[in-house]
């Protein structure tokens, strides 16, 4: 099921969507990601564990660095076995 709604966006985001093939799917995916992350925050908050924006920023950097190391490691192993 889908529902047609009207929303207002800042000009820069509206212009970005002008270049997206399926704007509805694009927005739905972005909302789904945000909702899922918000649910995690809510579940942890219910246990008295408050996930802050600062904590999220630290975790984002930690994960980004780990994924980069993983990519580089895989690349090096692939080149080593070639």
């Amino acid at each position, binding site marked *: 099921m889908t529902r047609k709604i009207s929303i207002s966006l800042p000009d820069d985001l509206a212009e970005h969507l002008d270049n997206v093939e399926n704007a509805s799917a694009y927005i739905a*995916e972005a909302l*789904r*990601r*945000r909702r*899922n*992350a918000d*649910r*995690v*925050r809510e*579940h*942890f908050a219910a*246990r*008295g*564990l*408050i*996930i802050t924006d600062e*904590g*999220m920023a*630290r*975790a*984002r950097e*930690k*994960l980004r660095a*780990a*994924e980069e*190391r*993983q990519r*580089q*490691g*895989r690349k090096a*192993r692939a080149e080593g076995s070639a």
Partner: protein
Amino acid sequence: MSIRLILDTSALTAYIAGDTRALHIGELIAIVHEGGNNVAAPALCVLAAHQATTDTEQRRELLDFVADAGDVLLLPLLADDVPDVAELSDTLHPDQRAHAAHAAITYGALLATYDRAHYTRELPADDILDL
């Protein structure tokens, strides 16, 4: 959606402890979800973490964590997985570590753990995320 992070027993045990370690795990899970991906816990790790506490509330929180509406996907040990997990368990004891390593390999995911040293014989160092 792909699985980007595997939580082993040490991570799950930290989660149910409900302290700052749990908070850091929550931050990582939220970031993975924000990126449109998933975090998963192998069934044997969940069982081991469950056995590690006798606190009824902590046990319930753990099972809620990996329930259908929870924050983490529960990975079953399928019949097809058993030969590979069994082979990994030759070097990874107890068996839940073999299941965790197998999941990381299968999904190409990072293994989030407090016990890096236990996995380094079977996983590349850069596939392990130190919590």
